[in-house]
């Protein structure tokens, strides 16, 4: 647990660009909320590997979103089923259903559709919000925390020693 917190802190405190961390979390949201064995996760994974996305942020967030997905399954099913049976969209779904690639993607599954729509809609807003939050954290909270007596006290604690060890390990 301490190691995990240290990793998050290291990630946030490092000089990594906020957009790389945000992008990692956003991609993790798609992979975590939607069923793992889905065709759309293949390009998502390719983008995660190809783009300079923060992998630590991606991996940690993926686990977190997978837990959230389990809780939200009924919501995704209801939303996905409503969308798939919505009369105005029937033409679109029918066209996609007749394209082998989409059939293989299994878009007609209620949970897959619901979770994918939610994660795609949230992708850009979450990206922007996270970017802003990370910047705010670094500019205000981190600077303020470093100046507090508590931070100085903690500097000698086990948490910080682990953090430092990891930081040094990461650099070497």
């Amino acid at each position, binding site marked *: 647990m301490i190691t995990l917190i240290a990793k998050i802190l290291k990630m946030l405190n490092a000089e990594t660009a906020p957009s790389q961390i945000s992008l990692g979390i956003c991609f993790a949201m798609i992979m975590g909320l939607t*069923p793992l064995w889905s065709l759309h996760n293949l390009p998502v*994974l*390719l983008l*995660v*590997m*190809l*783009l*300079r*996305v923060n992998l630590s942020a991606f991996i940690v967030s993926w686990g977190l979103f997978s837990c959230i997905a*389990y809780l939200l*399954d009924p919501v*995704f*099913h209801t939303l*996905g*089923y409503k969308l*798939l*049976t919505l009369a105005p969209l*029937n033409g679109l*779904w*029918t066209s996609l*259903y*007749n394209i*082998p*690639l989409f*059939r*293989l993607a*299994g878009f*007609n*599954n*209620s*949970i*897959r559709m*619901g979770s994918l729509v939610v994660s795609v809609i949230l992708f850009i807003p979450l990206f922007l919000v996270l970017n802003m939050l990370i910047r705010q954290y670094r500019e205000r909270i981190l600077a303020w925390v470093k100046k507090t007596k508590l931070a100085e006290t903690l500097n000698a604690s086990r948490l910080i020693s682990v953090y430092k060890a990891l930081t040094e390990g990461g650099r070497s």
Partner: protein
Amino acid sequence: MKQMIRWKGFIAFIVVFAVLAVFFMLIADGFVKKAVESTGTRIVGARVDLADTDLTFFPLGLGLSGMQITNPDEPIKNAAEIQQIRFSLNPWHLIEKKVIINEMTITGVRFNTDRRESGALTKEAPPEKSREKAEKKSGQAKGVSLPSLSVPDARTILEREELQCVKEIERLEADIKQKEQELREMVRNLPDEEKLENYRSRLNGLDDEKGVMGILGGITRAKKVKEDIQADLDRIRQAKQEVETTVQTLEKRLKEVAQAPQQDIARLKEKYAISPKGLGNLTRLVFGPAYARWMDRGLYWYEKIKPLLAKAASAKADQPPEEVPPARGEGVNVRFKEHSPRPDFFVQQADVSVLTDQGGITGSVKDIASDQTITGRPTTWSFDATSLKDIKMLAIKGALDHTNPAAAKDRLHVDANHIRLENVTISESADFPLVLDKGRLDLKVDTTIRGGDLRSDGRFALTAATFSGKPEASMSPIQSAITRALSDIPEITVDTSVRGTPENPSMTISSNADSVVRNAVAGIARRETAALEKKLRQKITARTDGRINNLTESINGLEKISRELSQRLDQGNALLAP
């Protein structure tokens, strides 16, 4: 831009997926094997095993070898064993999650083969019980037991049977004895001759009274004596009435007992005599169980296949699935109208070769579809064999037509000519073993199931048949008559008719052999029955006549008591006379 791309990551992605693809190709055979086995097992309800699978990617195709389909009723046997199944697949259809096979080859199909180990899914019953159950259900018994064709002699019957008439006689004997004791006890307590004579002495003594007072006293005493006599006479009269009632009851029972031997004779005759009517159902007894077994087996597999067609038909496109809560994490797959609709599973043609002890049977099955409403074509099959060892011609044709599920029509036509039969056990009864030495069988069976109504008509014609049983010398006249009658029929025809539903069929069987056998044995059966009745009558009356006479005498003995009481009444009445 350069900073945004991580080429090492891209290469790692490609390498990982290439390794996974190679790994999948290596283990794909195992996956396919497992999938085929588990799907087959689920459908059949008993283990389906595969020896090997051979998945090829370029071109995409699959070979399944050594398939064993367990017989769910007899898990130690395979319902079918298939040497090889081979077919090619269209990858584009597979992407659409549809298995479309244009040509399939199924070779080396054998039925009812032995398994090395049980293919039951659940814990198996002990082997003996399991085998017995299986034999009972699948009817592996080698023959049937015919009704008894010889009459046991009267002595044997009487040793074996308990006679109701003897029991009735014993009961009546005991009752008469008890009643006699009771009545004699009652009579003993009644005023006897001596007491009545005593009254006479008392009355005579009254004449000696003298004087007015003496005369008046005498009158009073005389009145008292007469009252005593009257009271005694009333008791005697009542007792006499009781005796007469008892005698009447016993006489009535005696009449019934006298009829009892006749009833016993009738009962034993019914039980042991030969009934030409019973023998008239000979073909049903011989042929019925076997035919019912074939029908049962056919309908069993029909019921297994039918849901596969019905299931697909119920899951139609354009109709949103029923909104039932799905299992967690699974969701619901909504189906949409396809531009070029295809069923999930379709085999355009499967060429099949079946191996039997008689030789090979080849044929084809066309248009095997999981949803016939899409293909618009029924599944049809046609098998022919003209070079079998003992069968000149065999043709099996049929169709499962569920193109319109509301008016599904399934049919099966079996036609076989010149089936050579030799040494076929018809009856293995120790009393009357019957063997078809040789004969030639032609058969035609048409079965249709339309909208749940079963209709099956069959005609079996046996020509040039000869039968044999026990050595002629040890046969009863009836056994000889049946054996001769059957052998003399130029063509034995059996007509079967099954109506009802697949779940509840009812069968009728008729044959020209029935009337021939009935006529052949009728005269002999009548004579033997009359002889049996005569012997039974002699033996039973010998046992009962004497005892019935004794009973009559005992009842007459009771009538003596009545007469004795009448005498006492007369005596008493004489005393009261003026």
